[in-house]
Every structure is written in C-alpha cells, then in structure tokens.
C-alpha cells in the first residue's frame, strides 16, 4: 500500500509550486513518486528520501582532509563557542530554510554581534538596493495569471531556472481575464543568448551582453514616443525597440520579470532602477508591474524576516550592537575580500559552489560550520558539517514566494532517525550561546 499526499509545496525555486502530489510508502518513510513537479523539484524529493547517499551525523574535518563523525551535542558546542568567541562572525545563507529557523538564527546573530546575510548577496541584492532607490510597483503571481497579457522576461530564463513558472503563471495558463491563455499574451524576452524561453517569445531582443541599461533607457524613450538615434541600440535594431514599445503600450496589463542577467551584469542596481522606471513609465499608458525572479524557495522569506526584525533585507551588520546596512561594505563578498570575518557560519546555502573562488579560499581559512543536508563544496572545506532534515520534505515551516506571498510548506516523510532540523540545531546553539555570554 502507498499513501498519496496532495497540495505539497515544492522547496526548490521562488515559484514555490503548491500543487505537488507525493506518493510515499505506507510507513511514510520513503518517497515513491512525485507528480506535478518539474525535473528539479522531483529530484529534490527523491534524493532526500534516498538515505543511502546522505550524511546522517555531524562530521568534523581532520588535518588530512577526511571527516570524523561527532555528535550533535559536540557540533552545537563547537558552533556556539565559535560564534560566541568571534569578534566579527558571519552568518550567511538562510535561503533554503524556513522563516522560523531564520528567526532563531537572527537571535544568535544579535547576541554574537554577527553579520547576517542571505543569498541575495549573489542573486537579487542589487534588486533590493534599487527598490530602496526608486520603489517597486508590483503584484502577486495570481494577478499575473488572471490579468496579464504582456509579459517581459529580462535577463531571465525560466525554462531552466524556474521551470513551471511559465505554465503556472506567466505564459500558458488560462485565467479569469486571460481565458485564451498563451494566445492572448504577447511575450518579450531580452537575453544575449537565444534561450529555450526566447523560443517562446513574440519578440526576442538579443541585447549585447552588459548593455541592458542602454536598452532599458532606449525602451523608455520609445515608450514616450521620442526619436531614437542610431540604427542599432545595445545590439538591437531600432525598429525592434519601437515594435517592443508599441507591444507593451497596447496591452491591458503587463509584467516585467527580471533575473540575473540584469542584477549581475555591469550596471547592477542601476539596471534595475531603469527597469522599475520603465514599469513606472508604462503605467502612464496601461497597467504594469514588475517582479524579481527570486531563486531559492525562501530567499524572499529571509528578506522579510530580516526586514521586520532589523529593518534591512540582507547584508545586516550587527557587530556594533545595532543594525547597520550598506551592501557595498557589509555584504559577505566584500567582507571576505577584505578578510574582516573571523568565523563563518553557513546555513541553507552553498557559497563554496556559488561564491567567486577568492571568497571561497577565504572561507576555507576560517573556523567554519556548514549546516546542510547535502554534501557540498562548502561542507567539503568547512571545519564542521552538520546534516539536517530537508525543509519542505522532512519538516514544514513558513516560506515566501517570489511575489512576497507566504506559504506554509509541508512535511511529507520522516527524516533519518535521530536527525535534527535546522530549527532544533539553532535552538541548541542559542541556548549554549546564552550560557557562554552570561559568563
């Protein structure tokens, strides 16, 4: 016999699909199949349930590069001592865990005077800076599905990064005012490559890599009916810019989705400033919104929790006893480059794989703890690796979708016996840090 659990939340990307069906064995220990998920989401559930590949106890790195098993109590002691004794520890990650764990982590950070940063540091950090510069006219994905007839994907390739985004919200679904689905929508993709997403576009603006700012400003001018000079703008023929501008103005409701192509290319937050101002301009002619294509399933939640606890969405410096924020100075990348951090705590992220190598080398020299269910490049270079239960698979908790809608994730199977969750581990560390700081 098997059990089917419906309406399961997918803990992979910021789309946070909430319609998965997971079939487990009768005892609720092994996942047999996953329906409705994309290839990545399905792999996450199936890999989590296959315990033969997983580390189930904390490990300490030895001098020869091998690991020796330690107990959770020893891992808690190491982590608490490391954070309590450091002058400027970094607590990085937070995007692949639930909001409850983030909140406990922030309490530890406050006691230890740590720097709290999430994966926006290498993802949508510049978006958050731009939002503080110029604001953001936004909406929920439900409104996109039911109303939007003009969609732009700018520097974003959802066919690969957010595989079900297009079918659930942005291109194919039939909604209340969008009964004809794809036929009713015009799609514009801006990408220096011809991608699997651009193959679905009515207009593909193949921008010269790194010249998004020029193209955005040209589009703003074209929308206002101003004359563009030059035949080719940022690698795109002038006529195509006019065509795109007319297409956008003629819609009833449009949305700009943007991704790493604009946040990580030169121009950074200024690119997003321009994209938001384009949205603003288009509201003079029709209704337009803009949404960031957030990557991790709960990076948005980390921004929310940091926001309501400290007032800033990422790169929060608590080392002076109050919250400071200046990403170009207090961002984890900058701190590692300046060698200012003296201990590194990583939870729910893999900087070893996703930071520039100069920063990874710096992490490897520090006292460090990696909390991660997987074996990762980060866990391979950290002094202690603590495996925990998968949030959204083996433990529930609150998560925020890319449009800032909170969704409660669900537990579908039991974790391996004796394995702690993020929250349990952090509560253990918090208790010990309080004892250490009291003395």
């Amino acid at each position: 016999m098997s059990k089917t659990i419906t309406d399961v939340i997918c803990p992979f990307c910021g789309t946070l699909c909430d319609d998965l069906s997971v079939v487990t064995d009768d005892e609720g220990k092994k996942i047999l199949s996953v329906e409705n998920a994309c290839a990545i989401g399905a792999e996450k559930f199936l890999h989590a349930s296959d315990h033969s590949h997983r580390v189930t106890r904390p490990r300490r790195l030895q001098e020869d590069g091998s690991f020796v098993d330690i107990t959770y109590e020893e891992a808690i002691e190491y982590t608490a001592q490391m954070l309590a004794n450091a002058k400027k520890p970094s607590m990085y990650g937070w995007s692949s865990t639930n909001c409850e764990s983030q909140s406990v982590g922030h309490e530890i950070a406050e006691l230890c005077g740590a720097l709290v940063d999430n994966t926006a540091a290498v993802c949508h950090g510049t978006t958050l800076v731009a939002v503080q510069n110029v604001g953001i006219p936004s909406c929920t994905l439900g409104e996109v599905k039911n109303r939007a007839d003009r969609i732009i994907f700018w520097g974003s390739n959802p066919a690969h990064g957010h595989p079900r985004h297009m079918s659930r919200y942005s291109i194919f679904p039939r909604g209340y005012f969008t009964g004809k689905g794809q036929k009713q929508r015009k799609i514009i993709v801006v990408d220096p490559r011809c991608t699997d997403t651009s193959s679905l576009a009515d207009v593909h603006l193949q921008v010269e890599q790194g010249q998004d700012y020029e193209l955005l400003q040209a589009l703003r001018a074209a929308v206002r009916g101003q004359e563009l000079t030059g035949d080719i703008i940022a690698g795109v023929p002038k006529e195509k810019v006019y065509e795109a501008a007319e297409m956008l103005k003629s819609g009833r409701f449009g949305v700009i989705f943007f991704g790493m192509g604009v946040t990580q290319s030169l121009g950074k937050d200024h690119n997003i400033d321009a994209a938001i101002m384009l949205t603003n301009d288009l509201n003079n002619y029709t209704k337009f919104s803009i949404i960031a294509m957030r990557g991790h399933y709960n990076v948005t939640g980390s921004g929310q929790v940091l926001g309501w606890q400290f007032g800033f969405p990422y790169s929060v410096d608590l080392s002076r006893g109050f919250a400071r924020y200046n990403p170009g100075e207090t961002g984890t990348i900058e701190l590692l480059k300046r060698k200012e951090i003296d201990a590194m705590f990583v939870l729910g992220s893999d900087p070893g794989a996703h930071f520039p190598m100069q920063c990874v080398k710096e992490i490897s020299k520090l006292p460090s703890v990696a909390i991660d269910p997987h074996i990762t490049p980060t866990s391979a270079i950290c002094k202690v690796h603590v495996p925990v239960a998968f949030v959204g698979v083996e433990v529930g908790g609150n998560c925020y979708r890319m449009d800032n809608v909170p969704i409660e994730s669900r537990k579908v199977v039991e974790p391996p016996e004796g394995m702690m969750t993020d929250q349990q581990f952090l509560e253990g560390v918090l208790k010990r840090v309080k004892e250490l700081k009291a003395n």
Partner: protein
Amino acid sequence: MSAISINLISGRTIQQGVSMEGGKETDKYMKACGIIEIDESDFKRLGIMKNTNVKVKSEFGEVVVKAVEATQGPHPGVAFIPMGPWANSVTSPETYSTGMPTFKGVPITIDPADKEKVLNSLELVRSKCWGDQ
C-alpha cells in the same frame, strides 16, 4: 589549435538544477556544470573538436572544463558556463561597491587542453583552497 578571447556569462540550466539536487559530489553534477558552451563559429576559431577539454583563464583564475556546443544558441562571441564552482573559478569578484560580484561579462581566454582532467566539484574547490598551501 589556438587560444581565443571571448566574453563569459554564467547562469542556471535545468541539468545544473537536477544534478545539484542529486548531489554535488556526483559525476553527474560535474558533467552538467564542468562544461563551457561555445558557439559553432567560436569552435572553428579555436580549432578543436567538440567535447574536448579546454583551459579557461581570466584575470581572476583558471579552470579546466569540457567544451561543448551551445545548447541554447547561436551566441557568437559569448561563452557560457553553468553556475557552479567551475564558473566561479574564473568569474570576477569585483562588486563595484554594490556587494554583488560580476558573474556575467568576464573576459576570458580559452586554450585547448585535451590532456588535462576536469575535476569534480569537491576536488576542484579543495584544490583551489588547499592546493597552494
């Protein structure tokens, strides 16, 4: 066979996502991300066969990856390495005071290196971190 200069971008692919969730210690992850996607015309300039190893160098480091034909192209003059430690061995840590490294738009050179091996993610990061000690 000759080295070429080209503009590098990195990003997600579905294979990167699937293999990452399947375990970054596996060969599957290395095969999904330890690659560089190059345009047909750039292969001709480079003068090598497809699916051979190359050494990618930038101002910030170097890495050996397998050169494959662009799966989402054409994009002459632009090379693509899926996000991961191979891409990050050569990407720019320069943030221009925004806190955000420049993962896209890094000038690189590509040299044929068919005798050299592509390391898996754990070997690669450990060799970068501990190799020069």
